[in-house]
């Protein structure tokens, strides 16, 4: 599965905590633990965009990993 574009709303739903998922990929979980908190503290469009870039980058750079593939299916269907 290709990593869906950063413009897909699911990414911002993820970092704003609007939607939560049971994810598998450890690096993303640790990162999201911080990003969701960061967005709660500072919910500006710039901060949301910056957090989306960070989590997208982690998934994109590990696209071959089985847990990443599983997470992408969980988030994007």
């Amino acid at each position, binding site marked *: 599965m290709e990593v869906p574009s950063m413009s897909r709303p699911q990414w911002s739903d993820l970092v704003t905590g609007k939607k939560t998922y049971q994810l598998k990929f*450890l690096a993303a979980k640790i990162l999201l633990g*911080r990003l969701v*908190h960061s967005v709660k503290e500072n919910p500006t469009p710039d901060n949301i965009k910056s957090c989306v870039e960070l989590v997208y980058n*982690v998934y994109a750079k590990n696209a*071959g990993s089985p847990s990443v593939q599983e997470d992408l299916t969980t988030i994007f269907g």
Partner: protein
Amino acid sequence: MLQDIMTVAETAKLIAAGKVLLLAGDEAALRQLPKGNWIGGTIPYFISHTEGGLATRERIFVTDVTGVVQSVEIVERDANGLAKVYAEGPQEGFSVVIIPALSKAHLSFALNAPNYRDFGVRPLIGWISGVHLDDLGKVTPKVFNGVTGNVLEEGAVVLQATLSPGKVAEVGIVNLFEQGGGDILTFPADGFSAKEVLVNGEKRNFAAYIVKNKLDTRLPLVADYYGALVNISFQGIDEVEGEVKFYAPVFTGIRYKHAKPVADYGEAFKACLENKCQLSEDRVVFSCNCILNYLYSGLEGKKTDPFAGPITFGEIAYQLLNQTLVYLEVHDV
């Protein structure tokens, strides 16, 4: 995958054969080894597949990753240079980092790694080297660069491994703890110690809070990072100074809870391992386990299959962890 306890001579033979090795052993044993493609850290405690948990100053725990890697580079990084550890990892591979306990690099990595550039873009696993508990305060933990022969007590060694084609690496954690049902604890500052804590938002002295509530400090604080449970272990309480010391830093903005009690630490750890037994031993390339788990679970003489490896003063799975077992799996894709 070879993960075994070996004599110095047996280990030297593997080095001479050009194997790529991750080594753990007492300083005197590691100093006897020839140069080669290896990194190492000091510690005399191990879990082996054949003998279970043991302490030995003479033998070395050997993890041979030759079979899964195409090439490796071994680099040394100081406390500042470690900031590149994710960004400079190989495109298709993983990095293993070993850092001496209580070094500047240890403290810096613990506090800053989550904010390093490109956090998480490459698999990073590793451990904090230590010493025999009888030697605490007398001998410093060290790390070894097998290529140069350098022995460092400040700074870290990193093995950057590019995987063979068709393979992918993943890092995992075994944590027997869950958040308990008690108070929500937050801290006003990042650090390895805390005097103040916010208990459900109310400022208190943390040492007094622990004493008053009779918290079992064998059980860590647990943070929930989007479902990944991360422990902060207690090092000690100074009631006079009103200060609590930890083996890993607490961070502001993170909500901690004292761990849910476990009826029997050893049994709970065993049950936790059994949940992971679907992992194939062939896929587990490396693992290490916390010395607190070793002590509190009474792991001497006991096996932790499918995992074997060094016992550590801290585990690294992307960031510093406590009271966990961390492992690196390599999958065929």
